[in-house]
């Protein structure tokens, strides 16, 4: 049984996408993928927990990476292992419009087949959909407690301790393990993969020879469970509008106006 499971996904690099308003659609000029920034932070959190000590009494601390969506290849998982996950499982299978509800069912089945886990970490939000459903849905499917949108997380002695940001400050939240925790992007600085490990993972050699497994989605759940909840009916873009206000006057006057606006904003 792994100690920590991390769910990792990918997103199209936004700098390779252009929105053409006249055509009313997005054009992908350069198809390159990034790891979801929040998922990278989740992996970083997992690795730090592992390095700090075992979250629960177990023979050895292990971090396993799983995909958060169904992917055409295992590159995301190789990156996760290169960065420090002990192993990863690629889920093979193509399901049209696979959404978070579907993935929660599939991943719950994976966790069960692994014999459970102490902790599941994943990103609190995704760069493309802006949604944070996967963590909570998986927690529900597993029947575990969930702590979402955390800044900081630690795990030891069978408990997970997290810090969330509230309206007036920071709040510490605790739960018994096993639990699902979702991590905000931008707080933890994700580490770079170790070079030699990266080379070995991609070549599938030496200590990395068995780091990746492949499981078929069809073996995990019934066809009924593979129906997505969400139906995509089209896309629309917000109308173009100018935000803000034009400032005029002498440079001194304009500086005054801007300073006042900033002061107002801070007060609010």
């Amino acid at each position, binding site marked *: 049984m792994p100690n920590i499971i991390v769910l990792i996904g990918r997103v199209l690099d936004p700098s390779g996408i252009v929105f053409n308003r006249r055509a009313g659609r997005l054009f992908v000029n350069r198809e390159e993928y990034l790891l979801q920034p929040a998922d990278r932070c989740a992996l970083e959190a997992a690795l730090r927990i592992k390095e700090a000590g075992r979250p629960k009494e177990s023979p050895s601390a292990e971090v396993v990476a799983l995909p958060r969506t169904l992917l055409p290849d295992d*590159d995301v998982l190789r990156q996760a292992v290169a960065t420090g996950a002990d192993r990863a499982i690629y889920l093979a299978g193509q399901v049209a419009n696979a959404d978070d509800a579907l993935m929660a069912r599939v991943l719950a089945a994976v966790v069960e087949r692994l014999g459970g886990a102490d902790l599941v970490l994943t990103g609190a939000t995704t760069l493309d959909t802006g949604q944070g459903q996967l963590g909570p849905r998986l927690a529900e499917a597993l029947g575990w407690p969930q702590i979402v949108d955390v800044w900081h997380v630690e795990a030891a002695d069978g408990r997970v301790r997290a810090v969330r940001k509230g309206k007036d400050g920071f709040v510490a939240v605790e739960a018994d393990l096993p639990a699902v925790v979702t991590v905000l992007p931008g707080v933890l600085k994700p580490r770079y993969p170790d070079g030699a490990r*990266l*080379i*070995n*993972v991609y070549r599938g050699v030496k200590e990395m020879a068995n780091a990746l497994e492949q499981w078929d989605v069809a073996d995990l759940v019934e066809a009924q469970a593979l129906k997505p909840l969400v139906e995509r009916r089209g896309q629309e873009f917000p109308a173009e509008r100018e935000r803000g206000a034009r400032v005029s006057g002498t440079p001194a006057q304009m500086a005054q106006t801007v300073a006042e606006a900033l002061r107002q904003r801070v007060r609010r």
Partner: protein
Amino acid sequence: MDFTFSPEHVALRRMIREFAETEVAPIAAEIDREHKVPHDVLHKLGQIGLLGVCFPQEYGGMGAGEAGYCILMEELGRVCTSTATNVGAHIGIGAMAIHLDGSEEQKRKYLVPLARGEKMAAFGLTESNAGSDAANIRTRAVREGDSWILDGGKVYITNGGYAHVITVMAVTDPALGARGGVTAFIVETDWPGFKVAREEDKMGIRGTSTAELVFEELRVPHENVLGKVGEGFVAFMRSLDMGRLTLGAAGLGGAQAALEWSVRWAKTRKQFGTELANKQSVQWMIANLATEIEALRSLVYRVAWMVDAHQPFTQLAAMCKMYGSEVGSRAIDVALQIHGGLGYTRDFPIERAFRDARIAEIFEGTNEIQRIVIASNIFRDYGVRIRP
């Protein structure tokens, strides 16, 4: 023929690009302005194994081969020539000499910490009377029991001001000269008799150490002879070839940056009622530049493949260095011209890249020497030994 990079090299490039943009690019202007070596960045590169990118994993390296090394130099060259130069001197001539010619003990003792970035390396060959004419060195090494005593000095040594380990070339038999009379020694810079005399004030690559070294009765144990006594030049020549190829890669990175800057500016800047991108003179510059970059890219990675496939590559490595440095210079000159005044002010990175690029046509063997090497090799293939 398969012109794709292997998956591990694609992943490696992606990782290095992120590192370069996050850790290196933000400090590039500062290290130039303040004339500082980016020790923090070098340390971080070492921590993830990049300072041993092409060395075998059993010696602390990454095992990514020459292709991996070229990718590293290209991506670093794209954001900061100074950083690329520090790294290139450390890996490509400093540690490389030990990798190519070191004994098992020497590799365990020196190559491992160098590959892990725990220590930094340099290569000490050039002297004031021995620039292009490297065989004209005068630093002397005299045997005394189980040590050698070195006396003399070196100039223009990249990383010389801070390296822990320097491979120094010294004359062990003046009568024999370059053929049999020069030996390579692994010198630790904290030994008595080793001194850094001064740092050069350079037009560019100001984020590097270019030092004058002095050796006064510097005692080097015999076990630190690299390769065989008298065969230092053979070792040196092999290191040089490797270093040349990767300089071409760094030039490629710099040229690529120049192209990206030029395109971005040309599509933004409007004069005479339209973007510069709509001006044919600019279009021609961009098209010519892009073509040269593609040609250089193909050359560099083909030669990297040949190195990893253990094929002879001396002449081609010289071409990479010569062509890469010249394309790099032409590229940034075009970028400067397109940017106009903004290319001439120190508030933009263009003029720094312009100053940085210029050295590539001179160090690591001037492009005149590269042309001699290429011509010699060509004529030799036709059975003629030319006098340069």
